[in-house]
């Protein structure tokens, strides 16, 4: 009986488990969003009564904010990779502000729709699918904001440094995903469905 052959010649590098896990989560989340999108499309124009999608205003400013937050978080990711912690903190904070702006924008949008147009979730099929799809996305933004803020707090207390770059980048993948989903939601709800 000999021992296992040693073969130092083969290099052995495996992908980061964090990234793999985040990719898997993104696949799973995409499936959830797909069903809500399908339901939305399936019910477009099937209402016999109640408000129609023509009451919607396109949230252009909101969209610009959310999409640019993908850029700012990307700058922050690069910054922490290079160990420039001040720059990281600043751009991370800007990302949070942009996300907050988006959430506040969504809240105002919902308020107007409810008060001005009488569109509630139980009003008709449009209300049902609109609030659940846009609401599902907004919930994801909220979850992202909680995560972002926690990381910011740790950064301000000096607990985050260059060695965490990988984890920060894995978390940012989630934020990029939420932004990408918005592109789909925006296209379906505010362009195709309107």
């Amino acid at each position: 009986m000999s021992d296992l052959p040693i073969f130092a010649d083969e290099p052995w590098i495996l992908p980061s488990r964090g990234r793999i896990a985040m990719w898997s989560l993104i696949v799973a989340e995409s499936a959830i969003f797909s069903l809500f999108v399908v339901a939305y499309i399936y019910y477009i124009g099937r209402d016999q009564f109640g408000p129609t999608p023509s009451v919607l205003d396109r949230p252009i400013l909101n969209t610009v904010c959310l999409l640019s937050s993908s850029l700012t978080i990307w700058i922050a990711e690069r910054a922490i990779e290079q160990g420039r912690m001040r720059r990281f903190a600043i751009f991370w904070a800007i990302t949070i502000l942009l996300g907050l702006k988006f959430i506040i924008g969504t809240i105002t949008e919902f308020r107007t729709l409810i008060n001005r147009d009488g569109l509630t979730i139980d009003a008709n099929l449009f209300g049902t699918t609109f609030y659940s799809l846009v609401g599902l996305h907004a919930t994801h933004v909220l979850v992202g904001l909680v995560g972002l803020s926690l990381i910011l707090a740790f950064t301000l207390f000096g607990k985050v440094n260059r060695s965490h770059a990988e984890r920060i980048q894995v978390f940012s993948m989630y934020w990029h995903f939420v932004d990408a989903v918005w592109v789909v939601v925006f296209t379906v709800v505010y362009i195709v469905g309107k």
Partner: protein
Amino acid sequence: MSDQTIPVSGSLQAAYPERGTLLEWLHGWIVTVDHKKLGILYITYALFFLLVGGVEAMLIRIQLMVPHNHVISPEMYDELFTMHGTTMVFLVGMPILFGFANYLVPIMIGARDMAFPRLNAFSFWLTAFGGLLLYYSFLGGFGLYGMGNAPDVGWFAYAPLTGKSFSPGHNMDYWALALIVSGFGTVGTAINIIATTVSLRCKGMTFFRMPLFVWLLLVVSALTLVTITPLTAAQVMLLLDRYLGAHFFDAQAGGSPMLWIHFFWIFGHPEVYVLVLPAFAIANEVIPVFSRKAIFGYPAMVAASVGIGFTSLAVWAHHMFTVGMSSAGNSFFVISTMVVGIFTGIKVFNWLATMWGGSITFSTPMLFCTGFLFQFLIAGLTGIMLAVAPWDWQLHNSYFLIAHFHYVLVGAIIMCIFAGFYYWFPKATGRMMSETLGKWHFWVFIIGFHMSFDTMHFVGLLGMPRSIYTYEPNRGWDTLNLIITIGAFVQAVGVLIFVWNLVHAYFRGKLAGPDPWDAWTLEWATPSPPPAYNFAVEPEVRSRRPLWDIKHPNDPDWKYEQ
């Protein structure tokens, strides 16, 4: 061979931890993040619910034993078949298979734990509490009939029966919430298995040297990501309907129950493959070892598994031929379903070719796998029959359908799970299960199985629909139903022999040693039971059968494998 420790780097003799007080022991199991302990927890949890689901099945069978029977009330009957289906799929099938995965995947790829041990524990407890929540409905779901009420609309929960007006209590809420909770757990575990397999393989364990068990669980986990989530989404919509007055499935406001049927089967069909692929995985390990041959057609097996994974996403509407689709729709789903049959056929032929010319020993695990091969073949054939739309118009929701899927779920999956128990129990506990009891278990169970489920095909062809509370005498169903019920009792005896074998072996079984089957994958290079860290030194492998290489230094696999 069997009483030697294989000198793979790292197989230190296990240092057995001292037994503490009962409380310490319990605490240890509750806070554990060790993949092996969590695997055992999953399996124990699933075994418990297997017995619960089994009792439900027995009650159903007692009710159907003779015509015009009134052993249980019609309301109770509806709850029983709903809970039986839901239990067996979500609280038995998935947890038991994920239990095997948890235990085996890290050891088989030479890792010390899963990629995210704490996520692993969290996922298990989510699943566990999901199950408890579902069963709490028996006590707490104040429903239509004025007492505690369990869900009673079938495991597929078709709209509009699930709406507030038809299910006014909380039974559907328990159903939806419990499955959402356990679904999160399932997705967590799936993510964990993927990350473990991709990122934690030991040196030299390339993708094409992984045991097929690991390959199949990788496919299953990937499939789970896109399978469980549609159900979660649909259940969220259902809860929105029930609580906020939304109209997703509410026909009165223009919503469509069809949408639910589609969404449910978009989940439901891949789900059956999520259940069956781990069973294939067990067969992939057992059949070669007991045929003393390497698996035949490894690359074809991998390709067929991946192929099944993808095609199973495009066949869901073969459950919907009778709801009235266009003929183009029907044709598409007929053809795509047939394609799944091709991939499955590849696998069956590879198993047969592995056995062909091997020196087979019919130890209990191999017996169960042989039974599996035979029964899975028949199940696949009735599947193909049901995939022919006109045939399905005739037999949809008859006992023929029930026979088809129980042939797979019991005849194939449960058989493989039993094989897995007999095969890996020595590894997990250090003790052998009794071969004599094992053979009794096999023969009693398989006789009962064929009594019940072969007969179900006929009573289905004679027109007996599923989910009926009772039936008229003299339709030609009476004797057949009696035989089915007797078969169910015989199977129950088989399961009791199995449980007794488990308990007996745990305390009294003869010591197993590290490698009782003279097997080839890495888990057998560790002591039985393996220490918490699995391998003291990370192993390195050079072929698909690392232990073969050690045992046969003059004839190692890596000389031949590409």
